[in-house]
Every structure is written in structure tokens, then in C-alpha cells.
């Protein structure tokens, strides 16, 4: 038990550090995830990634509705409560990741996992994945995608700013590549959790 707690705290210490420069293109910031940390709800997860309301709720809800096998639970209400602890950019993507992990933790049957990835395009057209809050503000366009785990299809997208069709395809391809990394992290995180209990 103590080992597990130490492992958790170790994961949490790192996210504050984001001064290391990231190369243009593919790197995502460090992740941390902790599950089952609340005793009352059926499932819960906190997702740390790196150190406009009804619209965002609807996006998250519709994404969850697309993957959750609702037909297996008739007359059931599944409430997903997301509490923002800190916002250092890419908030919507982080919310989507947390929602997915919480649904897995609760044991809700889903047809696929999903993850959120944010891309920012700056004024020169350079693509930055998982932008910080400062990068998001200075970017010409910020695109957030939700991708599924089976074929990396686009489940949800919301964008801000002006960009061309070619840039969209470029961002989508980069997001699909990055989503592989997120799904690998989900798998490792779950393996770690279930190997202990």
C-alpha cells in the first residue's frame, strides 16, 4: 500500500516542471493518473497533464454517449462529474481523458476507449501538440480532437481560429499518432493498478 502511495506521489511531482523545451511536432507533456481515489462514487480518476460551459459539457457528453454501450443499461443514468483542479492548457483534452479513465474505472461497458488531443498552430504554421496555456493564447488556431482507440477515427472536434484544409489534415494525422501514446499510457496505468490488487 505504501509503495503504491509513493509511486503516486512520484508521478505527481513531475508535472510542475515544464521548462524543458519540446521539439516542434510530436511530444506530449508528462502525464499522471490516479484511480479510485474517491470512495463514494463507483469510479473516479484524476488525470494530470502538464502543470465556455454548456458547450464543453455537451462535447464531452456526446463523445461519451458515442462510445458507451447504453443499450446494456436501460433506465440507468450515468453521471460524469469533472472537477478542474488546475488548468495549464489543453483543458478539454484533459477532461476527455479523465472522463474515459473514470468510465473504465467504473466498469461501464464501452465499444472503444477515447482520448483527447489538442494541437495549436502558430502564426508561421508550426504545429505544437498539447500546448500550454501561453501557447494556446498566442496561437493562430487551436484544434481539439477526440479519437477512438480502435481505428483512431475522429469522434469529436472543436476548433478555434482560422486554418486551411491541409493544416487540418496535418493536425489530425499528428493527433492520431499522439493518441497512440495516450492509449499506451492508459494500458500501462491500468496494468499497474490491477497488478497490485
Amino acid at each position: 500500500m505504501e509503495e503504491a502511495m509513493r509511486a503516486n506521489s512520484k508521478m505527481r511531482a513531475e508535472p510542475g516542471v515544464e521548462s524543458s523545451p519540446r521539439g516542434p511536432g510530436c511530444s506530449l507533456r508528462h502525464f499522471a493518473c490516479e484511480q479510485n481515489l474517491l470512495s463514494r462514487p463507483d469510479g473516479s480518476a484524476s488525470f494530470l497533464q502538464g502543470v465556455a460551459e454548456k458547450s464543453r459539457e455537451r462535447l464531452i457528453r456526446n463523445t461519451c454517449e458515442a462510445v458507451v454501450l447504453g443499450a446494456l443499461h436501460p433506465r440507468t443514468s450515468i453521471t460524469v462529474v469533472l472537477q478542474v483542479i488546475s488548468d495549464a492548457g489543453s483543458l478539454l483534452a484533459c477532461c476527455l481523458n479523465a472522463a474515459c479513465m473514470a468510465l473504465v474505472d467504473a466498469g461501464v461497458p464501452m465499444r472503444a476507449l477515447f482520448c483527447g488531443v489538442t494541437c495549436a498552430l502558430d502564426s508561421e504554421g508550426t504545429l505544437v501538440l498539447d500546448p500550454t496555456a501561453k501557447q494556446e493564447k498566442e496561437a493562430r488556431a487551436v484544434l481539439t480532437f477526440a479519437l477512438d482507440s480502435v481505428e483512431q477515427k475522429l469522434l469529436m472536434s472543436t476548433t478555434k481560429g482560422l486554418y486551411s484544409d491541409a493544416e487540418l489534415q496535418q493536425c489530425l494525422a499528428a493527433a492520431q499518432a499522439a493518441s497512440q501514446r495516450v492509449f499506451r499510457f492508459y494500458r500501462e496505468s491500468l496494468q499497474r493498478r490491477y497488478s497490485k490488487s
Partner: protein
Amino acid sequence: MAAGFKTVEPLEYYRRFLKENCRPDGRELGEFRTTTVNIGSISTADGSALVKLGNTTVICGIKAEFAAPPTDAPDKGYVVPNVDLPPLCSSRFRSGPPGEEAQVASQFIADVIENSQIIQKEDLCISPGKLSWVLYCDIICLDYDGNILDACTFALLAALKNVQLPEVTINEETALAEVNLNKKSYLNIRTHPVATSFAVFDDTLLIVDPTGEEEHLATGTLTVVMDEEGKLCCLHKPGGSGLTGAKLQDCMSRAVTRHKEVKKLMDEVIKSMKPK
């Protein structure tokens, strides 16, 4: 006989049509409903437009008022959109505070205005730090039959093209604004964003301009807002079944042709209007 089947198995009824690559109202999968626009019908508003997309009817009225510019941007004005879906347009809406769909539509229109830079907010400033215009854009749906976002975007664009603002001078002695109603000028509309909506069926088929029934049966929706240079202002896909990159490409090309159709229609109507 067909009506009975439609009530009992609406999705199967629909699939029979989709197999023949057409829809119950006779349209092809990539065809829009008849679009009509009437500009300048409300004389009490500074700009107005009525758009009909098949049965979906949306009216946009714009009123310009004075306001103090925001403290963090003293040389900018405001554009405040509001989409209202009253109970008269469809039985699914109840009277009272705006429901979720109306709020999401308002947010969508606000995003389109912000992202496309359709109006330079600096153009709305009269006197930096003291006085600026605020444009209240009220979009009301009169009849809801699907594809509300396309109709609202078109109505907003047409109404903005119709807005005439009077000349305002600040009297230096009294520091009051003097409005010259005889001298009016049109707004400088920099881009023309046009929205194209699609509905996804059975995870594979994409149909353009869904009606109310089609939206209900669809497994997902996608709205693309494009301006005349082919730049995208908004790619709104609120969940629903997944799409591959190739399908997205098809949507983009359809959006480009739709933009041309809408622009042509709007230019014709504006040309045919008698000057006020």
C-alpha cells in the same frame, strides 16, 4: 402502408431509401434543400434577414447601440449574438430560460464571428476608450426542421451585410455624441463564412443538410464553416460516430461548393434590393 412502416421502424424505412442513394424527400445525399433569403424585411432593425432552408426558417435582426468599450480593448466594439429557439418552432422546446441547444447554438455563432473575423471589432469603435457600437444580433428560429446552424450562420451573414450604421461625431464642447441619421454607411464585411452541416448514418454514410427527422435518426453530426479562401473557421463535431480523414476530405470539398452556391444567392439578392 408506408406510413405505418415509417412509424414502427423509422430507421429501417430510412435505410431503404439510403440504399438507393436518395432520401424520402427525393433529394440526393449531397443535395441541399431549396434556400431562400429575404434581406431587410424588418424596418425597425438596423439590419435583418430571413432565411428558409426547406422548412427550417430563421430570422436574424441586428440592433446597434452605444456602449463603453471594454477596458482591456479600448479600441474595439462588441458583437453579441443570441440564438433563440422558442416553443413555437418545435414541440421539443419549452418556454423559459434558453435550453441547452439554444445555448450551444449561441456559442457556435459567437465562435464563428470570433474565428472568422467577419467584422473587425476596431471598425465598431467611435471614440477609443469612450464610445463604441455594440451590435446585438438576435437570431430567432421560427420553424425547426433540422440544420439550424447552417440557417443561423447564413441569416447572420446576410443581416450583417444589410446593417447600415449612422455617422456619429463627438461634440467637443458638450462631450455628447451626435448621430447623423441621414448619413449611413454599410459595415465592412471582411469574410463570408458559410456553414455546411452533415449527418452521419450507421457510422459510414454522410448526408448533407439533414432534416429534423434525419437528425433524430443520425448517429452523429458535423458542421464545417468555411470562408471564401477555403480557410476553415470552425469544425464542429460534437461527438457521435467516428469519421476517417478521407471522409473529412469529402466534407471539405462539399463545403467549398456550398460556399459558392450561398455566396451567389446572397449577391443576387443584395443586387436586386432597391437602395433605401
